[in-house]
C-alpha cells in the first residue's frame, strides 16, 4: 500500500470496514464455538473416540468384565480361521446390491407417478409407507408371510401355479438370503421413489417439448434426457441406500437370526454374536473395522459411479 492510496477515502473505508469485520468475526468465533461445543464433544466421544478405540481394541483381548491384554495381531489372524466371516462378508455385499435393484424399480414407479392422473399422491404415500415402518415389525410381518405351510406367499404361488411344492423360504439357506433381499427392496423402494420424484420435478418440461419436436421417442427421451439429468438424484439415492442398508441388522436378527446355519449372517449380526454370544470384543472390533472400511468403500464407489457418464 503506497502513500497515494492511503490518502483516498475509499481505502480508509475499506480498512475501517475490514476492521469491523475482523472484530465481528472474532466475536462470531467465540459464539460459534460455544454453540457448537456440545455437538463437537458428542461427535468426539461417540464417533471419533469410538472409532479410535475400535482400532486399538483389535490388538487386545478384552473380556466382558473389562480386563485387557495385548495380543498383537492375533485377533486379525482369527479372520482366516473364522468359517462364518466369508459368508457374512458375501451377504453384506449381496445386500448392498439391493440398492441398485431398488433404485431401478423406483425409477420405473417414479416415472409412472410423475404423470398427472387421479390418485397419484395417494399412491406415493402407499409406496412410502414401508420406509417409515419399524424394521422389527417388518421382520415379524414377513416372517409369517414366508411361513412354509401357513404362509400366504406359498399359498398364493401354489394357487397361481407358479410352484407345485411349498418353498421353505426361511428354512433353506439359499432361499433365506433371497427372502431378506426381497424384503429390503420392498422397504427401500418407496424412499427412492420419493427422492426420484423430487428429482424429476426439477427437470424443466421445455426440454421434453423440444425433444418431442425433434421426434425423439419415449425411450430416447428417457435414455438421453431423464437419466442423465437425474444423475445427481440417483447418486443421493445410492448414498442414502448405504445408510438404510444398516437397518438390515434389525431385519436379519429378528426374521432369521442369521440362520439357517449361518447362511444369512451379515457383518453386523456377526459382530453382535461375537459380543454377546462369545464375549469376544477384540475380534468384534476387527469385524467392525472391516465394516467401516466396507462402508466408506461402497460410498466411494457410489460417488464414482455418479461421475461415470451414462
Amino acid at each position, binding site marked *: 500500500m503506497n502513500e497515494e492510496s492511503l490518502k483516498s477515502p475509499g481505502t480508509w473505508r475499506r480498512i475501517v470496514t475490514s476492521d469491523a469485520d475482523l472484530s465481528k468475526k*472474532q466475536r*462470531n*468465533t467465540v*459464539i*460459534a464455538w460455544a*454453540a*457448537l461445543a*456440545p*455437538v*463437537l464433544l458428542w*461427535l468426539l466421544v*461417540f464417533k471419533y*473416540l*469410538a*472409532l479410535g*478405540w*475400535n482400532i486399538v*481394541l483389535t490388538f487386545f483381548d478384552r473380556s466382558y468384565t473389562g480386563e485387557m491384554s495385548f495380543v498383537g495381531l492375533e485377533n486379525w489372524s482369527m479372520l482366516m480361521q473364522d468359517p462364518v466371516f466369508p459368508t457374512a462378508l458375501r451377504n453384506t455385499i449381496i445386500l448392498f446390491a439391493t440398492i441398485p435393484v431398488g433404485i431401478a424399480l423406483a425409477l420405473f*414407479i417414479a416415472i*409412472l*407417478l410423475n404423470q398427472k*392422473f387421479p390418485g*397419484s399422491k395417494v*399412491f406415493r*404415500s*402407499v*409406496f412410502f*409407507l414401508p*420406509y*417409515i*415402518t*419399524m*424394521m*422389527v*415389525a417388518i421382520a*415379524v*410381518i414377513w416372517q*409369517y*408371510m414366508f411361513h412354509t405351510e*401357513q*404362509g*400366504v406367499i406359498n399359498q398364493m404361488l401354489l394357487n397361481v401355479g407358479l410352484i407345485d411344492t411349498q418353498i421353505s423360504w426361511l428354512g433353506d439357506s439359499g432361499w433365506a438370503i433371497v427372502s431378506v433381499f426381497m424384503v429390503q427392496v420392498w422397504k427401500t423402494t*418407496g424412499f427412492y421413489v*420419493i*427422492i426420484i420424484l423430487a428429482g424429476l420435478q426439477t427437470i424443466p418440461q421445455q426440454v421434453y417439448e423440444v425433444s418431442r419436436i425433434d421426434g425423439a421417442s419415449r425411450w430416447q427421451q428417457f435414455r438421453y434426457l431423464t437419466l442423465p439429468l437425474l444423475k445427481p438424484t440417483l447418486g*443421493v439415492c445410492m448414498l*442414502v441406500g448405504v*445408510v438404510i442398508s444398516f437397518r438390515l*441388522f434389525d431385519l436379519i*436378527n429378528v426374521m432369521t437370526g442369521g440362520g439357517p446355519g449361518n447362511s444369512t449372517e451379515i457383518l*453386523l449380526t456377526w*459382530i*453382535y454374536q461375537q*459380543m454377546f454370544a462369545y464375549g469376544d*470384543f477384540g475380534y468384534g*472390533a476387527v469385524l*467392525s473395522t472391516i465394516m*467401516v472400511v466396507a*462402508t*466408506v468403500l461402497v460410498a466411494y464407489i457410489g460417488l464414482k459411479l455418479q461421475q461415470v457418464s451414462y
Partner: protein
Amino acid sequence: MSGINEFATIDDTRRVVRRITSESKLTLLRKGGLFTVALIAAVLFAFPFYWLIRIAGVWPSGSLYGSAPSLIISDLNLYNFVRVYYAIPFVQYTTNSVIVSAIAVVSQLIFCSLAAYGLSMSFYGKKYVMGFIVVAMMVPFQTIFLTDYLITRQLGLINTYTGLAIVVAVSVVNILVLKSAFEAVPDSMVDAARLDGASELYILFGVYWPLSKAALSTTVILSFVFSWNSYLWPLLIATEDSTTTLPLALATFQSQMGGNFALQYAFTIMVLLPVLVLFFLLQKYFIRSAVMSSLKT
C-alpha cells in the same frame, strides 16, 4: 364456446371441437392405463399391511394352524389386542419408548439448532469444524456400535433413559438441514434484532426458529421416527423391563410367543400405530422430511 374466435367458420369450430375431444379421449385412455399399472404395484406394496390387519383380527388364534387363512377379512376381532395388553407390561414399554423418543427429539432440537446456528456464521476454524462433522457422518453408528456400547457402559448409563437416548441425541443430517434453513434467513432481520439488543439465544430461538418451521418439523419427524424404531441400541442398553422399548419388546415377544402369529401381529399393530397415525395425519411433512434430509446428505 366463448373461447373460440368469433370470426371462425363453423367448419373451423367443428375441427377444433373434434381435436379437443379426440385428445382428451386419448389421455383418458392413457390415464386409465397408468392408473391400472400404478394400482397393481401399489396393491403389491400395501399387501403386507393388509395382511397385518387380517391376521391380527383372527380369533381364536389357534384357528391359524393347519390351513392358511383366506385372503378376505371376514371375522375381524379385537380380542388379540386385549390379550397382548394383559400378557406384557405394555404401558411400561410404551412409556419407555415415549420418554426416550422425547429426550431424543428435544435434544436434537436444541443441540442441532445450536450447532447449525454456529455453522451459519463465519468464524475462525469453520473449515476444520465442517470437516470434522462431515467425516463423522461417514462413519455410521452401526459400524462402531461395539465401542459406543463400551463407552456408554463406562459412563454407567446401562439401563437408563439417558443411555438409550444418547446415540440418537445428535444427528449430522439434521444439523445440515437446519444450517441451510438458518442461512436462508435474511441478515437484515438478524441485524435488526441485534440493534434492539437481542441476545444470541434470542436470535436463535426468537428469530431463526419461527422462520425455519419446515426444517424444524423435519428434525422432529426424523428424530422421532428414528428413535421410536431403533432396535440395535436398546438391545444392548436395555436389559430390564424398566427400560425396554417397544421394538425390543416386540422382538422378544416374537420369540416368547413362538407360533402364535395372531398375537404377534396384534402387538405389531400396537407398536406401529403411533407412527402410522402421525403419518396419515402429516403425510406431506413426512415426505418433505425425507426429501429435505436426503438432499443434505
